[in-house]
């Protein structure tokens, strides 16, 4: 345990000095996707629900955050919070239709609803359609801290990320998290114990959507720009790949996966189609040969060595 | 492996282990089945009787040890290959197909080897099924479904029948009919492995009884032995 704590402190220390060495916007993108991947992991890794349109929570929160910051003059942190709340509400609505289902039906329904949300946002006037919502201002955080530079805003984003991950950690290690895992492993048994799996699934979906919204809102303030891309299916697909690659149902896996895929995207950006092709290849390889993901395999390997 | 002078072992199970996902349910099952006999697997719920049938048939995929059928090793074979060697399986839940009518259910299994019974012949043997040939398979009564499930596998021409609790949940009259059917099949030279909880029914049809506990064989009794020492069996079954 103390060893894990040491590692966590080391990672945090590295995160604190990172913007001195790496372009802050890249780092902030990674942080946004870490939160997004955690939210996805809460559903698939801990509840066994494959949301095949998670971008609807991520991207629409971006617009909401952008809109309230622009039109109501909110500070970034309040804007992000509004976006997260909106997505949690959207998650609740999706849940009303979808949580009676599990497995493939849930995946199909969330896929279709996400497309629905995409089309609505495409046609709405407030989103700026294909051009996106531009020039989202970034006021002083809490009305005190000037964050016009990426360097200083990085620390705000880092703080929100740490808080979000801590929240995620608390949720999956709470009695509620145990029930979610039980639902994932055996839905019927949970029901026979007198719990209503649907209610727990709904709450998991709301929390997950809220976290995804937090990530999306954050991204909109980082880039000062909200775009249709963030609501589109490729983003839903990217978060699946990040989570599986890092390790489904592990705490740190999705973080590793998010960092790796963002890093890969930056390097393959100039190579056109190869970015998507390589994502497909990675996903396929993970499914065929590395189903526990990088972190999951690493954990298994360490456990096997300890057992010797 | 000892052999009985009256019947050569057609199916020899040795050190059979089996798993459902990660949990191990068979721990070295060991018994043989002689040509032409009715053999029951008896034991408490969860002892591993059904699992043994499923392992023999290959439906339980993760298994090790040896299953030799007429001298040939089956442990690495797939379900359909095992069926083609001459083993047929009737599951406890009967698995009558809801999307097929009675006649389609009956006609579904292909005739794999000489001796397979034609659909017409089966329908005349089971007049109840004849009458309801075009109704959906799952609309039959429990007893009729059981008859259909057994009749169906006779089509393949397999001479070894693995029947899982055919008497379960049926009225005494119907249980009696099933018993008569089993004895009739035996008289026709079929070899039958029966999983049973109903000791009275098992005693009425079987030549030998294999007692299963915690995934392995704890005793094998002949019909005579069981008659003389009923108390011993009842302790095994906890009745």
């Amino acid at each position, binding site marked *: 345990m103390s060893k894990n704590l040491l590692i966590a402190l080391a990672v945090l220390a590295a995160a604190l000095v990172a913007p001195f060495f790496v372009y802050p916007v890249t780092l902030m993108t990674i942080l946004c996707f870490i939160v997004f991947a955690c939210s996805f992991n809460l559903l698939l890794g801990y509840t066994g629900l494959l949301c095949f349109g998670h971008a609807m929570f991520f991207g629409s929160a971006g617009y909401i955050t952008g809109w309230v910051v622009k039109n109501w003059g909110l500070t970034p942190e309040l804007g992000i919070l509004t976006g997260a709340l909106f997505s949690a509400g959207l998650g609740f609505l999706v849940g009303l239709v979808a949580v009676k289902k599990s*497995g*493939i039906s849930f995946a199909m*329904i969330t896929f279709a609803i996400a497309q629905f949300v995409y089309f609505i946002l495409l*046609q709405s006037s407030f989103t700026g359609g294909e051009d996106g919502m531009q020039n989202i201002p970034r006021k002083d955080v809490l009305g005190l801290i000037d964050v016009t530079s990426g360097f200083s805003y990085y620390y705000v984003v880092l703080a929100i990320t740490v808080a979000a991950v801590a929240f995620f950690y608390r949720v999956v290690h709470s009695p509620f998290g145990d029930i979610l895992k039980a639902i994932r492993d055996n839905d019927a048994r949970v029901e026979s114990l007198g719990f209503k799996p649907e209610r727990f699934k709904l709450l998991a979906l709301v929390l997950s959507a809220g976290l995804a919204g937090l990530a999306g809102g954050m991204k909109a303030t980082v880039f000062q720009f909200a775009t249709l891309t963030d609501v589109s299916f490729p983003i839903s697909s990217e978060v699946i790949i990040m989570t599986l690659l890092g390790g489904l149902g592990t705490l740190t896996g999705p973080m590793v996966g998010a960092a790796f895929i963002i890093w890969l995207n930056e390097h393959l950006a100039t190579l056109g189609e190869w970015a998507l092709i390589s994502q497909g290849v990675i*996903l396929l390889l993970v499914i065929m040969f590395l189903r526990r993901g990088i972190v999951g395999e690493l954990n298994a390997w360490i456990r096997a060595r300890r057992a010797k | 492996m000892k052999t009985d002078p009256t019947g050569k072992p057609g199916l020899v199970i040795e050190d059979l282990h089996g798993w459902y996902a990660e949990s191990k349910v068979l721990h070295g099952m060991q018994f043989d089945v002689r040509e032409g006999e009715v053999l029951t697997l008896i034991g408490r719920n969860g002892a591993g009787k059904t699992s043994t049938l499923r392992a023999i048939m290959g439906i339980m*995929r993760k298994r090790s040890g040896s299953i030799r059928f007429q001298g040939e090793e089956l442990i690495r074979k797939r379900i359909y290959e095992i069926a083609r060697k001459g083993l047929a399986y009737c599951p406890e839940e009967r*698995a009558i*197909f809801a*999307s097929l009518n009675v006649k389609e259910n009956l006609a579904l*299994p292909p005739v794999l080897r000489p001796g397979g019974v034609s659909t017409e012949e089966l329908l005349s043997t089971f007049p109840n099924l004849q009458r309801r040939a075009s109704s959906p398979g799952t609309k039959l009564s429990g007893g009729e479904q059981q008859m259909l499930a057994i009749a169906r596998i006779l089509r393949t021409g397999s001479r070894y029948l693995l029947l899982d609790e055919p008497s379960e949940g049926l009225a005494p009259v119907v249980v009696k009919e099933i018993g008569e059917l089993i004895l009739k099949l035996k008289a026709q030279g079929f070899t039958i492995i029966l999983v049973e909880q109903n000791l009275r029914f098992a005693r009425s049809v079987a030549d030998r009884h294999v007692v299963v506990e915690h995934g392995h064989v704890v005793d094998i009794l002949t019909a005579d032995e069981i008659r003389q020492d009923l108390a011993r069996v009842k302790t095994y079954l906890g009745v």
Partner: protein
Amino acid sequence: MFDFVSPQLLAGQLLIGLINGSFYAMLSMGLAIIFGLMNVVNFAHGAQYMLGAFVAWLGLNYLGIPYWGSLIIAPIVVGAFGMLLERVILRPLQHLDHLYALLATYALALIIEGLIRQRYGSTGLPYDSPITGGLRLDFMFLPWYRLWVVGFSVVTCIGAWLLIEHTKLGAYLRAANERPDIVESFGINVPRMITLTYGFGVGLAALSGVLAAPIYQVSPSMGSGLMITVFAVVVIGGIGSIMGAVVTGYILGLAEALTKVFYPEGASTVVFVVMIAVLLMKPNGLFSSSEKA
């Protein structure tokens, strides 16, 4: 409201709706057949449809194979490719959570679409219609080729339905949908049946792709765009229901067309509105019979 809609516009849109519906029906039927036996939603279906169109285009431009030849060759080539994918990728995942197989087919779609786009670019490639001319009615012009597509799709759907409901092969398929292990215990080679069924479903997608080539342009994204609607069709019809897939396919094609006439802003979302409404009233879809979905 009808006063403002000219019969030309209405008839023209209905024809487009019928054409789109034909493709929805054929593609969602293939998905339903595959899902019934394998419990896998084939996310590569759109990519395989697109491959069908590309095989036809390549055949015409490099080997001089005419449309009518491609109608036979493309489904065979792409179907064989599908069988290879089933053996190498889907079979090892068969006994795991079905979500893995779903994600694997999605990964395949990403790879196939990406490679084609890398090689041939994103712009549509033209494919000439093999039948020119058409029927001139009072209020509209009806191209022969579109009539051919609608007729072909109806015949294919009815044919596949008859095959499944009224033949021995279909009985095996229906039984294996319920209990593959029991069907296999009758001595039927179910693994081979699964490979062939997947190949058949994929071939059907490729066939639709060839039919589509002269109507829509041949482009890498022609499949993924269509599949968004097709997946909604599958959910509405009831996942795994063949009848549901076909009927819902045509109905939604027409519903989209009518929306385009009377409320153009809603044309791209009407399918999803219908889906949500159906899910709220009949959670298993309109035609679902099995509870396994």
